């Protein structure tokens, strides 16, 4: 009796809610309140320290820190390295996605699972492992060293680490789109006389372009901020193999908080610009929003 009454009352309430366009689900204030308080305390207040710290700086000092030759060398390495790594990841990521979606071969499931390894392996472990592989005595570093190519403790090493950490992003953004690409389109292209190469460049690639671009940007942003794996393999020589996050770290260790903050601001502006461009491109193409972490789950979601 009591149950029935409550049910009727709730039903009535829901009808009222629908008529007045109010949401009948419980917990709005509690959940949003908790969410906003958490974000405020953990994100907004700490991030604002960067603004305050820089605001306390003289403009001239700021410019001096930001344009110091050592800093400029670090920007060059970080940005060029991240660009190159993202490009390599796009090429191999597209190939891996293609192979995983279109072909069948031995241990395919296992390879598919292994792709996420750079997400799961701590960066410090990745760093020492990559250094061991590409170092002077490593299985790949030794033959390359004999050929005169130094990887670890050189700029190439930075690139290797950046490729490692960014690889899954491209595969995981391109894979679901490729899975969703209907074979009909390709058949139509083939029927109309297009060769395989032409079909790929005129039909498939344009369709994959937004996802590929997103993967590129995510991989770029990750490579730009990466610290853990790179410090082990790069050798950390100022002006030569020093990346921006490491320079920030060095300044922090010398208690030069102002200098560290100024460099951090430059990096933040760079990564936010990248994210902004990604978002606007996605918005333009009306491509399913693949924001940073969505990549991690986008596959299971689209399959489901």
């Amino acid at each position: 009796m009591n149950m029935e009454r409550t049910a009727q009352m709730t039903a009535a309430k829901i009808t009222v809610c629908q008529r007045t366009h109010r949401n009948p689900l419980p917990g709005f204030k509690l959940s949003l309140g908790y969410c906003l308080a958490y974000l405020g305390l953990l994100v907004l207040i700490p991030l604002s320290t960067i603004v305050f710290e820089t605001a306390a700086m003289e403009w001239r000092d700021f410019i001096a820190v930001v344009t110091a030759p050592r800093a400029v060398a670090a920007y060059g390495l970080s940005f060029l390295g991240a660009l190159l790594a993202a490009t390599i990841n796009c090429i191999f990521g597209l190939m891996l996605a293609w192979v995983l979606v279109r072909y069948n071969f031995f241990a395919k499931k296992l390879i598919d699972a292994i792709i996420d390894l750079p997400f799961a392996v701590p960066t410090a472990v990745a760093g020492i492992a990559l250094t061991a592989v590409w170092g002077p005595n490593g299985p790949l570093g030794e033959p390359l060293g004999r050929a005169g190519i130094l990887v670890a403790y050189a700029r190439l090493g930075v690139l290797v680490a950046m490729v490692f950490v960014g690889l899954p992003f491209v595969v995981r953004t391109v894979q679901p789109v490729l899975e969703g690409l209907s074979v009909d389109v390709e058949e139509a292209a083939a029927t109309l006389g297009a060769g395989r190469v032409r079909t790929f460049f005129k039909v498939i690639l344009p369709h994959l372009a937004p996802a590929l671009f997103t993967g590129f940007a995510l991989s770029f942003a990750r490579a730009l901020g990466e610290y853990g794996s790179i410090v082990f393999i790069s050798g950390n020589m100022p002006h030569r193999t020093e990346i921006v996050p490491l320079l920030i770290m060095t300044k922090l260790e010398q208690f030069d908080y102002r200098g560290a903050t100024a460099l951090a601001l430059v990096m933040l502006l760079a990564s936010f610009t990248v994210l902004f461009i990604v978002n606007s491109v996605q918005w333009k193409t009306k491509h399913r929003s693949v924001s940073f972490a969505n990549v991690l789950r986008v596959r299971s979601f689209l399959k489901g």
Partner: protein
Amino acid sequence: MKPAMDMTARAIRTNSSKGVSDPLWLRWGLIFTSLCFIFMVLILPLVVVFQTAFRDGVPNYLNALMDPDTVSAIKVTLLAVVIAVPLNIVFGFAAAWSITRFDFPFKRFVLSLIDVPFAVSPVISGMIFVLLFGANSVIGGWLLENGIKVIFALPGIVIATTFVTFPFVARELIPVMQSQGADMELAALTLGASPWQMLRMVTLPNIKWGLLYGTILCTARAVGEFGAVSVVSGHIRGETNTLPLHVEVVYNEYHFSAAFAVATLLVAMAFITLGIKSVAEFMEKSRASENRKRTLEAAQ
């Protein structure tokens, strides 16, 4: 109808009708190149980790793991995980619930805030807490006067870990709850369920695999975080070193096999993460297709 269509599509795909399949040489060329790439970039580093860890024999491997500093690093790491992960699970659910079930202004802004730790370099993530709680700051100075040390101490490690890992659960749950919609929850309420009953019997069972996966990712990152924790920890051996920091310390002392021995623990964790991820993905997929089948049957 739909399964039949799926089957036709699959038949077309496997029966390699002319024009949509790649020639054999290309097929095997691409597969071979991919496997070589995967081997060089992903598999070989792992092989080397285990090879180096056991280079000096099993007793030395065990010694490296039993070392008091290693044990203390494990404890510090676990402490950070035990505090950060539950906080982030609650946050993740609260964020997903408010974002997917209600409309409010500045929703996009809130969503972008959730992405901040992914967009920011780990070093910067650590730095903002040094600025906030460091000895020179207002809050940090006040806390120090009252005997609470945040930076170069355990609280700093916990806070930095929480910051770096908070988006994972939210980011996992938001799409899952978005795609499910609120129909089942509304139905439960209409049928007289209390909010608590709705949560326990409708909402949670529907999101359990997404929640599990998000939690696992969050935990893996909490255990493995290096950059942010490195900034705030102060590297006090046996006190404020987490496992990844301990790996670095040992490695920089040229105890390579010991460093790799500790690293095997973290690699094992990575494998467990990937394993649970595969299971969760599979279960989520079968749950979704089950739901779809049931809806289809109900419609007929």
